[in-house]
């Protein structure tokens, strides 16, 4: 892979962003961050990411809203999106998939699983 995979993490929690950043940087990914859906969309207007990792519960624009907006834009329509979820029940997974997520990462995440999840969706 000649180009570094760039990942946009979207979470209103600074500590969660920091945990993601540390885990992703260690594995050689580029990381950009946004605090919520609105900021993520603003960032995506002028930038691009190979994978978006987003939390669900966020102020202003939540994860589902972000996915919907991303999926309705022509530039990012097939952008892989991983959602951070605290539950791994089949119902939650279905909900995430139905919302347009490509996959999910169960919090608290294990850095290895995070990397595997990214690998499985990064085009």
């Amino acid at each position, binding site marked *: 892979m000649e180009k570094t995979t760039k990942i946009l993490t979207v979470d209103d*929690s600074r500590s969660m962003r920091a945990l993601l950043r540390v885990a992703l940087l260690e594995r050689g990914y580029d990381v950009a961050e946004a605090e919520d859906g609105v900021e993520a969309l603003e960032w995506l207007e002028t930038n691009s990411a190979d994978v978006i990792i987003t939390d669900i519960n966020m102020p202003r624009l939540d994860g589902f809203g972000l996915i919907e907006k991303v*999926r309705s834009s022509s530039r990012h329509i097939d952008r892989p999106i991983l959602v951070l979820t605290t539950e791994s029940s089949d119902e939650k997974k279905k909900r995430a998939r139905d919302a347009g997520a490509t996959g999910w990462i169960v*919090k608290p995440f294990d850095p290895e699983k995070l990397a595997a999840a990214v690998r499985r969706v990064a085009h």
Partner: protein
Amino acid sequence: MTNDDILNIFFLECEEALAAAETGLMDCREGSASAETVNSIFRSVHSIKGGAGAFGFTALQAFTHKFETVLSFVREGQLPLGEALNGLMLRAFDLLTDHVSAARGEADTPDDTAVSADLEAMAARAEAGEGAEEEAPVAEEIPAPVEDILLDFDLDSLLGDIGGEESSAAEAAPEMGPELDIDALFDAEMAAAEASLAPESDAAPADNDSADWTVLVRPRAGAMANGGDPLLLLRELEALGGKCTAVHHNHVPELADFDAANAYLGFVFQVPASVDEDAIRDIFDFVGDDCGLEVIRGDAGDGFAKMMAPEPEKLVREERPIVAPVAAPVTIAAPAAAPVKVAAPVAAPTPVAVVAKAAPAAPTPATPVAAAPSPAAKPAVTPENAAADAARKATVASGQTIRVDLAKLDRLIDTVGELVIAQAMMAQSLSEHGLGQIDEIGMLDQLTRELQDSAMSIRAQPIGSVFSRVPRIVRELETETGKRVRLEVSGEQTELDKTVVERLGEPLTHLIRNAIDHGLESTETRIANGKSPEGVVKLSAEHRSGKILISIADDGAGINRERVFSKAVEKGLIAPDAQLTDEEIDNLIFAPGFSTAAVVSNISGRGVGMDVVRQNVKDLGGRITIQSNPGRGSVFTLALPLTLAISDGMIVQVGDQTLVVPLTHVVESLRPSTSDLRSMGNGRNMLDVRGTFLPIIELAKPIGAQGAALRPEEAVLIVVETEDAGSAILMVDAILDQRQFVIKSLETNYRPVPCVAGATILGDGKVALILDVDTLVGSAVSYNGGVRLAA
């Protein structure tokens, strides 16, 4: 960034989340809650839960989970806000605060059994109420499922039409899988009901643990929706050591029917026996039902081999050209990112892409990723105005702030303090050289002061952080005492020094307890006295003439002076026949040893007396006063300095020493007339100040100053008042100046010295000691009534 750094960030977030949750909960209680209020409480609790999980705070995580469950029901409207629910949420919130403290290691893990049980009961009630609705999508958050659209692809009929010809590609696989009807397996209907396949795998000799895995993968239409790409999943299988042994392509439709968003190929992989089954299944976790998957322990089987065997090479050569976006055999090109119109570029009649390449080459799905069912088609779920509203609130809530290490800040303030001193020294020495009138000096002086003010204001914090703890205390007391209390808070934005804010918590807590426990009457008494059954406690802060005034007022019965008086007599604090003014009686409650068991219940009297409160306030350089009105309540007022680092003082000369007397203590200064002086023997003198005799303390003695005036008549006397030891008079040679000074701690720079509160550097560069007037006077007058100073 280390884990500890992140942990600290988490704790800061917890503080913010708790503050936000409490604000929201108070709104709920006052009935002014909106949907966004509940949302924000939910988010706060949820974010604490997330971090708690990440950092392994299991007790905190478990508790937040229960709290969150109830909040989610509230958010979804299944639990209407009411008194009982508000009460429970507040109790849960208080416990959550304790749990966070425990996570920080500041407290023991609280016992949450009762509240947890209540939360679970509440959740159970919500579930029972509309149990069936539990999975219903939340209108605000969950977009309508895309499912419907996906199901429009009638996979069954689509695949059924094709059927027929069996052509597969396979790597020469020596060990073959069990007999399997691959076609059936890949049939949508069959695969959808995975359970029905179990007998088939059972039928196969599959109980051999050492056999390689046979993995059958059949992506369906949805597998490529939402940015998914089955190719990546197949690569993961390869990463586990898997090899593609066959590709099943007989479902590939005629070109005219070809849908770029659909998936037509099936793959057979052989994965080493050593790989864990879960590891294989995990790969396909994301695609779920959108990808048929069978993982079978498989021996070689003839039927299987036959089915998959037809020479792969022939197949590849013979097969028609590869469809535009589909990968070339060896390296797998990712499907084009843009939706591709499949029909156009394909020349061949039936687009089939079959890749069967030796070793690690991976097959690729024959379909490019195409436009997933357009999300735009989904109903817009988040109303624009709601989002805008939330955005507005968020903007208001989060001020523009940065976090700075306190040590850095203190260094800045220290340096600015030095600058102020240097500036004063320069001004002084310039004026000694007759250059005092330079304009620039005035400018510099002003700039320095502004710089100092700004630096000090950085350390200033709104008192709200202390006030915010009060509602909880009030709630707890309401429960304990059975009294109803309305708390009115004002002036939360008033700023004062961080250290003062931090140390204010304890005295404030005590005063609040005192106000509710003693100040307010019981509900019955209030009703009997024609008062509102709900007692009012007002907490306010304001900036006034260089000080911060904090008052705690209740509308209760006021201080029962008779009782206080008799208690004080009983305790031997005053003579039974003492003539005291109302104010003096009121102040008796601050006397050390005024144990008020008869008056104080176990709530306020938790080992801390009002004397400790007064001491705390005094340590902060402030004072506390009481105004009490029988039948109408009491007001405790704390007057605190804006900062601990700078203070106003009187610079005095005692022999060869220059000293600073903090201005807070100074009442007046005077030159005595001989007639007002009384010698008490022992070298002790008293001065008659308008009818009251005050002891004169000769500062030269404790300080060890040389050449000071020895007789009061030759000296300047400064009347000072203290908290504990009453008023006294300090005898000095002269008053030099009265100005602000920067306090330097002796304790940090040298060691604590009795009667000295610190030191400062004067304009001429000399160091002057700052007197600790309270200790000085206290020790001077305490020794058998005689003057004895700790020299």
